[in-house]
């Protein structure tokens, strides 16, 4: 309780003592005045509540996570009475307002307004409210303070950030490089084996055959496989906005960062995700990547998304088995993901799982080199982690 209110209560108690000993205009007048002050103050606060207006504006057409945008707000007094103490509090869970102190109080004369220009930084991708969250009103004697939510919050749709990775520390990119980069131009066929019935005659390596005296055929490493696959887990963490927005933002950022990394190196990238149906996006730099980025920006995670179904559809289509390496990006390293990773591994495809959030545990170790799990915090810098 603030000091002014304590002083008022003390004076009011003294006025009670006063009217007990003294009658007349003065004693009762003081008592009634001290009694009416809180009532009139509350009435004043009601007036402010109904007459106070907030106008908010963002200059940027598109908001991108991690990039500051100009943000304007106006505190407007549309009433005939002065507003003696108005404070605004900003949303801070997913965004930050730079250049202005949250604790400043404003006084507005009748029919006047105060305009402020600041910078708005959205920390996560998603759709949420930014700007002014609450208004705090005080009366002229600072006896009472009420706080109420902004009746017209500013809702924005923030796109994920595009992080440029210079290197991928968490994965051996040689595994996913095209065949041409791996083979020695002088000796393109590194491995040979003995001829077995059914092998293609065109694959017979005559040199090796001559040197060994047996029919030898060429064996190409990864000949049927090319490019990388990125599997985006479409499941939502839970219904709590404070958990799923940061997680999903990081998941999408990771997917985009990986896709851009490999596209930069001209490695074919296919991104698997599922909305209503399984979708496979073959990503390349240029217009296709722009489209892919827009698609990822608007990607909807769902709590009831069925990853088992997605995995089984992927297994059925079989395109994922053509990848040299598969990256799984999810918020959980559960049995479903492990199972699918295991299936890929058995087909000879290394899997690197990027798990956003959660804590490392024993099951992260897939045993030998079944898979690699990399944990990413929701606020981690991808250039450091990936």
């Amino acid at each position, binding site marked *: *309780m603030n000091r*002014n209110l304590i002083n008022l*209560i003390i004076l*009011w*108690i003294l006025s*009670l*003592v*006063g*009217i*007990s*000993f*003294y*009658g*007349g*205009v*003065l*004693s*009762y*007048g*003081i008592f*009634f*005045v001290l*009694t*009416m*002050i809180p*009532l*009139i*103050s509350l009435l*004043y606060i009601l007036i402010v509540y109904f007459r106070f207006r907030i106008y908010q504006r963002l200059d940027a057409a598109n908001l991108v996570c*991690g990039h500051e945008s100009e943000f304007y707000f106006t505190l407007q007094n549309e009433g005939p*009475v*002065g507003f*003696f*103490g108005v404070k605004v509090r900003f949303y*801070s*869970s997913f965004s*930050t307002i*730079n250049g202005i102190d*949250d*604790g*400043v*109080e*404003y*006084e*507005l*004369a*009748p029919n*006047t307004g*105060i305009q402020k220009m600041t910078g708005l930084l959205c*920390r996560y991708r998603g759709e949420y409210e930014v700007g002014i969250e609450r208004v705090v009103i005080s009366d*002229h*004697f*600072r006896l009472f303070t009420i706080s109420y939510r902004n009746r017209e919050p500013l809702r924005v749709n923030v796109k994920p950030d595009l992080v440029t990775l210079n290197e991928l520390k968490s994965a051996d990119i040689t595994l996913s490089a095209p065949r041409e980069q791996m083979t020695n131009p002088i000796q393109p066929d590194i491995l040979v084996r003995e001829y077995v019935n059914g092998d293609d005659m065109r694959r017979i390596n005559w040199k090796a055959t001559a040197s060994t005296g047996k029919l030898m055929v060429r064996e190409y490493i990864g000949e049927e496989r090319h490019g990388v696959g990125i599997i985006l887990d479409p499941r939502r963490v839970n219904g709590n906005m*404070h958990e799923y927005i*940061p997680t999903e933002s990081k998941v999408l950022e990771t997917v985009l960062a990986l896709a851009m990394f490999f596209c930069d190196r001209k490695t074919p990238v296919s991104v698997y995700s599922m909305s209503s149906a399984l979708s496979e996006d073959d990503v390349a730099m240029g217009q296709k990547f722009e489209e892919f980025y827009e698609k990822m920006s608007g990607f909807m995670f769902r709590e009831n998304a069925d990853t088992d179904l997605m995995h089984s559809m992927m297994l059925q289509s079989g395109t994922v088995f053509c990848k040299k390496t598969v990256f799984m990006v999810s918020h959980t390293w559960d049995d479903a993901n492990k199972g699918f990773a295991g299936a890929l591994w058995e087909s000879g495809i290394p899997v690197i799982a990027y798990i956003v959030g959660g804590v490392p545990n024993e099951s992260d170790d897939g045993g030998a080199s079944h898979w690699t799990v990399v944990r990413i*915090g*929701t*606020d981690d810098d991808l250039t450091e982690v990936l």
Partner: protein
Amino acid sequence: MTGLAYELIYTIPTALTAGYMILNAAGYESSGFGFYGITVFFSLLCAFFFNFGKRGKAVMAGTAVSLAAGFMFLYDKEERLSILRDHIMILWVLLICILSYLMIKIIKRFHRLIQALGLCYAAFLVIMLITGNSLPKAVAAAAIFITAVSAAEEVQRRWKKEGYTESARHLVNAAPFILAVLIAAFSFDMPSKPYDWHIVRSIAEGVMRGYENICRAFMPPTGWDGEDTVIGFSERGALTGQVREDTYMAIEVSSDRRIDERLYFSGKTFDTFDGRNWEKVDAWDMDYQALDTVEILSAVLKETEEGEGIADYLKKAQAFVTYEGLNTHCMFIPQKTYKIMSERETYCTGGDRTYAGRRDKQYSVYFYQTNRSHPLFAKMVSDRTDIDRGTWNKALGKAGLLKDPNCTYDKYLQYLEHIEDVYAGDVTLSDEMRDHLAELFAGEDDDMRKLELIEKELSGMHYTDNPGAIPEDVDSAGEFLDYFVLEKREGFCTYFATAFVLLARSQGIPARYVQGYSKSVRDRKAFRVMSNDAHAWGEAYIEGVGWIPFEPTPGYKKDALWETADETSVSAEVALSANGMEGVSVSSDNEAEDKTGGGELGWQMVLIPTLSGLVFAGLFLAGDAIYRKRRYNKMSERGKIISVCRKGLVRLERAHGKREQGETLLEYRRRLGEDVPPESVRLIEIYEDISYSNKSFDDASEAERLLKITERYSRRKRFEGFINHFQRKT
């Protein structure tokens, strides 16, 4: 315009209050709409004049000059002087308004002077209140208004804000609300008497009574003869060594007339004493009260020759008795009761009336007050003769008991015999006691006179609540008398009452020991009988008069005494002749206004409002704390951390001063440096991180821990600052 309004806010109330005080002191009429209207008008004129530009000033000055010139030319000297004399007050008001305005013009430049003005008005209000000077509503409102606006201005001065914060503008915007407060407040009725808190008192008394009743139901008081000897009514007649007080309200009595005597409410009578305890043996079911009342009525009728002047001896009265904190079925009956009205059934046993089953909350008794101390009464007793049937029946008629079969003359004769049998028991006196009494009575033979001498001797002894236990070897009435009258000579009411009854019986006079309540009433119609009003006394029976109560306990005697009709007429005539109003008749039974309430609750007048206020403040604080706690618990972890960090910042600002304009948290943190604990620095860092960085914070417990340390530090720092300040002063 803002400046003008600001000046008017201070000028008008100042002019009103100053004008009222000055003109009142000078003997002028300084209240009413005329005075207020003129004051406001002149204040506005002054303000406009000084705020107008040159043209405005010129117009106003020109108008004033023209008016003055016209006045000079239209009236001659005599008329001018006459008009000025008749309306000098207006000139005074004008002067006061100008001076007030000029004073405000100077004061408004310095906030200290504004503060001083506010404090002066606050002091003025307090002084006027304490000295009991009344003010008209408008003047009081004006004085309170100035105090309030100066307080508002001070609040504004200390309030760090951005925007339209200029002091004058703020006050002009705030003044309408302050004015609304005053209008609302002064529209209430303002009585000239202090508030009597009857609502709070009623509630408090009701709560206390309920609480006491519950306690009594579970732990009934045992009275002064129980194991735990507490002063209070008891249905047993044991004499104990000591008693202690335990005050609660026993019964409440209200009467239809003013009472100014010691009233005795008999609860239970006892007839047999074994040296240590009284017992009740008499189980006769006759209506003793009615018979006793008719007997005294008969005596008065005989004395007064057919009832002329009966009011000189007896006055009818009615009382309503309400049980409060008492857990008994005994009824408490005043002497000379002739009618008892209760809804539930009662019965008589040996002169005591008791509820048969569940008792009423309230009953009424009709009785006669006796003019006990008047010489007429003593003469009536000494002139007493046996009552004949005729007189008895007349008395029955007077009491309205003609049809009562329990009050016939034959019943009366049986009653006489019964009293003689039960209450005139032998008391064996020792030789020493006999000699003592012989010396006391000195040959006196009259029963009434003997009784008075006994009463006088006993009431001259020493009263104590702690006389000690009766010796083990005392086991008869005679031995008790030897112990108490000859040796101990001190005790409390049961001892004195017992001694009186035994001494009376030793002289052959029937007497009984009575326990009940005795209240000395000073000219009241309603009063509360408390537990420590419980009393024991003796009653002696004088044939032809009835039972007469005696008060042998030291310090208790106060009988009724009122003027007879003759005495009243004589004294009224003397008074009237002194005032030149002979021949006017005077009633001898004036009923003055009841002045109950008012002065009895001295210290409670402070305690009740203070406690009420403290209770209200406590409830408000508790509610506020609960609301804040719940709001805090509903916040997200991030929200909690932000809230905690802000609180920590406020604590640090209290200890080290606020952040300067534009100072960032980082700069503030560096400025505080090593003066503050590292935990407080960490708290500011967390606040910075959470406000400006992308770090996530999932747990508020660490911040809460840091806040506690910061709060402790802040309190210590402020306390040290206060001590240092005080030491510097001294």
